[in-house]
């Protein structure tokens, strides 16, 4: 998953590290010359705020008095430009790329580094912190269900062919494994075979399904699913819906009616990670028109670039909840930003 992005980020990290190492080596070489001319002690510089852009004199003094080196913007500007291009080439949205670059720059420029301290660790930490900042906190569905009145009603929306129905089944299997009772509402009454498809899934994973005839009003199906959940004290209602483009006003009105009738606690937007920046733009459109509380990205195992996964939370301001990673019911992983960042940049020991 996101293999291409990982490779490029590690290369960008190394370039940043090399730039800083080179610049700091120059500073270190000044030590000998400077010790001949500068006084040895100066407590003033110990109190210098560590993240202000350093002047040349400041750099030399800090180097002498505290045995520390300071990173300047000039030292890393070229490597940052390369990082920017790397992120854009991986389909990371422009505002997100800007946010990452600004974060890394703010984190590194003016940073004091003890002589002998690893530059790689410094750079890795800055990149990790920047990525965590844009990835947000994720969305813990288990905790949400635990802390809300049941049945928790979850409505799934999105465009056609992104794996919405399969995602509903996968999340059903995930919740069942976590000890919750689940009912699925077969609200995609439009696509031929969709009711059968979700019916087979429900049977395979052992979950109750509420379904009507093909062409029936999806609002009625989902209302019945909610009623079933209330009367049977079921924990969660998963409401499948037909795929639609946000530009189709009749289908969007239908979704609005579904929302009025079943009053979902959560609206989850489903799209495929391989769609890259298109997925981000579509998610923003859906959020504007029908709203979205969280996002699921499918086919993440096929996505080498990782742009959508990195950009979506920061761009639409809604958390990523799950990543679909294969064909099996178990091939869905709760999105944990810390784990993703760790996977992309390796542990500190690798740095």
């Amino acid at each position: 998953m996101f293999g291409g992005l990982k490779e490029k980020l590690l290369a960008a990290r190394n370039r940043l590290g090399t730039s800083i190492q080179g610049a700091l080596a120059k500073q270190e070489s000044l030590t000998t010359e400077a010790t001949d001319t500068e006084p040895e002690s100066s407590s003033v510089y110990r109190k210098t705020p560590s993240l202000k852009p350093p002047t040349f004199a400041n750099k030399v003094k800090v180097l002498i008095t505290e045995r520390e080196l300071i990173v300047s913007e000039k030292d890393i500007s070229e490597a940052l430009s390369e990082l920017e291009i790397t992120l854009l080439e991986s389909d990371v949205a422009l505002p997100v790329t800007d946010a990452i670059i600004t974060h890394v720059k703010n984190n590194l420029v003016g940073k004091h580094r003890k002589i002998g301290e690893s530059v790689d660790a410094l750079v890795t930490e800055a990149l990790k912190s920047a990525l965590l900042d844009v990835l947000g906190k994720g969305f813990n569905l288990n905790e949400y269900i635990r802390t809300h009145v049941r049945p928790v009603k979850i409505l799934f929306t999105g465009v056609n062919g992104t794996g919405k129905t399969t995602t509903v089944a996968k999340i059903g299997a995930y919740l069942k494994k976590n000890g919750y009772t689940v009912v699925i509402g077969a609200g995609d009454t439009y696509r031929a075979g969709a009711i059968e498809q979700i019916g087979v899934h429900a049977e395979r994973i052992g979950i109750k399904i509420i379904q009507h005839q093909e062409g029936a009003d999806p609002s009625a199906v989902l209302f019945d699913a909610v009623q079933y959940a209330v009367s049977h004290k079921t924990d969660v209602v998963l409401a499948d819906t037909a795929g639609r483009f946000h530009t189709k006003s009749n289908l969007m009105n239908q979704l609005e009616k579904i929302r009025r009738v079943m009053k979902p606690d959560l609206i989850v937007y489903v799209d495929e990670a391989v769609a890259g920046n298109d997925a981000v733009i579509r998610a923003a459109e859906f959020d504007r028109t029908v709203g979205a509380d969280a996002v699921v990205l499918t086919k993440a195992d096929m996505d080498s670039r990782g742009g959508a996964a990195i950009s979506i939370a920061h761009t639409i301001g809604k958390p990523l909840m799950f990543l679909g990673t294969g064909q099996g019911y178990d091939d869905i992983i709760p999105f944990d930003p810390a784990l993703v960042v760790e996977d992309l940049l390796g542990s500190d020991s690798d740095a």
Partner: protein
Amino acid sequence: MQQMDQRELMTLQHYLKEYGQQAEIFVGQLELLENGRMEALAAIEALEDMLTTEDGTVLLQIGGGASVRAKVIEPEKILLSIGAEVVVERSNKEAVEFLKERIIEMEASQKRVAETLDHLRGQMNEINKRLESGYQQSAAAEKDQD
């Protein structure tokens, strides 16, 4: 061997249909990737040829199958879409290198999608075999009853 009932046969038919739909989606993705790869190869050829043509004249497609002869003023400066809807100016050589990298990425994606497709087709074959055996059992059972 235990005889399959009609319900089991129907479930297998559903699985087969669903796998078939998934396979169609992956075939579509493979086509998109192949189109992207061919487009990138054509672009590389055009970029390289632009540097070698004497007067810099190229055929510019304007849609509907119509083309006009056009002169490239700066064949060395290429405006390249690098992703995330961002266009940057690169040298001709850099643009070719970028496109070659993209082709490698697309080929790697094609490989992954093709593997998944093979896996799906394997599962479909298995289901087909079970269905076939179920039909034969049903036919034999009906014959016995007659």
